[in-house]
């Protein structure tokens, strides 16, 4: 891969990018946050959530998968896109059973944090209320599919970071579920609590057992700073004037 430098324009700001980067990566390097959920810096992109959709030369596309090319004109932080991103967050909320008040991941949950950042007060859509049972067959890790957003991070991490294939999908459409590599549940797989897959979940779906809400309210990741603040703190470019 060459290190050819190029320039892309994000919301009117010229951003330097390197060949081989995705739009999302180039933006992050420049301190511009593009909202995302299924993406994780250590994983290849999955393209599941579509929250990182931006307009690329006027057409919508997922910034986590789209490679930079010199002169690309990107729209990111627009009312239209943010409203649509919020709509996706709302869809994910009504698709599962996300009881934030009693969820141990609350405050550290990326789905919830996106809701906060994108201004969701309450989902407008009807709740689907799927019936799921917790898979607690593993000694150290459990899956609560009520909280799954099908981001596929666990599945990708298992293959790409752990060299295993503990997770996959089952079914299709609204009936899609995260599946495990055993007929006997997670406990039948070779997942280890030390695997990256075990702790890479953005919500409270895949959790290490026995933790509970172990970080006090007020000190949790998104209690006082919005998701993406870490990226924005690195900002190297001035916002458009």
């Amino acid at each position, binding site marked *: 891969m060459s290190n050819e430098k190029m320039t892309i324009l994000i919301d009117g700001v010229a951003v330097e990018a390197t060949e081989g980067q995705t739009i999302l990566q180039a933006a992050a390097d420049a301190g511009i946050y593009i909202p995302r959920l299924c993406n994780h810096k250590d994983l290849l992109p999955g393209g599941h959530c579509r929250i990182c959709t931006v307009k690329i030369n006027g057409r919508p596309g997922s910034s986590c998968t789209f490679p930079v090319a010199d002169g690309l004109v990107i729209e990111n932080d627009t009312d239209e896109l943010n409203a649509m991103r919020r709509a996706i967050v709302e869809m994910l909320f009504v698709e599962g059973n996300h009881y934030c*008040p009693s969820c141990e991941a609350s405050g550290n949950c990326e789905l919830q944090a996106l809701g906060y950042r994108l201004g969701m007060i309450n989902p407008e859509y009807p*709740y689907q209320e799927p*019936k799921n049972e917790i898979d607690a067959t593993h000694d150290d890790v459990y899956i609560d599919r009520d909280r799954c957003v099908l981001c596929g991070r666990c599945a990708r991490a298992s293959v790409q970071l752990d060299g295993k294939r503990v997770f996959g999908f089952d079914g299709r459409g609204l009936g899609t579920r995260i599946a495990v590599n055993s007929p006997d549940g997670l406990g039948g797989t070779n997942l280890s609590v030390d695997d990256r897959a075990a702790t890479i979940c953005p919500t409270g779906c895949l959790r290490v057992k026995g933790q509970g809400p172990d970080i006090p309210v007020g000190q949790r990741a998104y209690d006082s700073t919005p998701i993406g603040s870490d990226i924005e703190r690195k900002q190297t470019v001035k916002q458009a004037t």
Partner: protein
Amino acid sequence: MAKPKVATGHFTGCFGCHMSLLDIDERIIDLVELVEFDKSPINDIKRFSGPVDIGIVEGGVSNDENVEFLKQFRENCRILIAMGACALNGGVPSMRNTVPLKECLEEAFLNGPTVHGGVIPNDPDIPNLLDRVYPVHEVVKVDYALPGCPPSADTLWAALTALLSGEEPGLPYELVKYD
């Protein structure tokens, strides 16, 4: 000019939102200057005295009496605010929505380890239960929603004072929480 009237109501929830409203602490003295309270569980006014300006309701909708009272709120309140997770989306009580109602009743009244001679309550003097706990906005039109379990006192205060001064309540990051 007459003070705006405020009513509060409570459905299937834990009363925590009302408690959070009381957590405005000394500001309640300011609030009394600003508004007149109508029907509310914190006073003894059990029926609307007439149209009120702002109605604030806590809790989801889980029985026929909730439905009836909620409709009264909608009819009598110019602005209706849904307060807290239960009102907004059913909250923790809506965890029963993925379990058959029958099993919930049987567990509580027939199978519990301390139950002696169980029977599922069925007297006409107690309300009929709904199949699930519904968010308030699925039953009546809601004008504003304040998330949180409960919304913090600051959240409630910010929203109320904004509305009372005729502004759209816009809440800063710290005041919007779902838990």
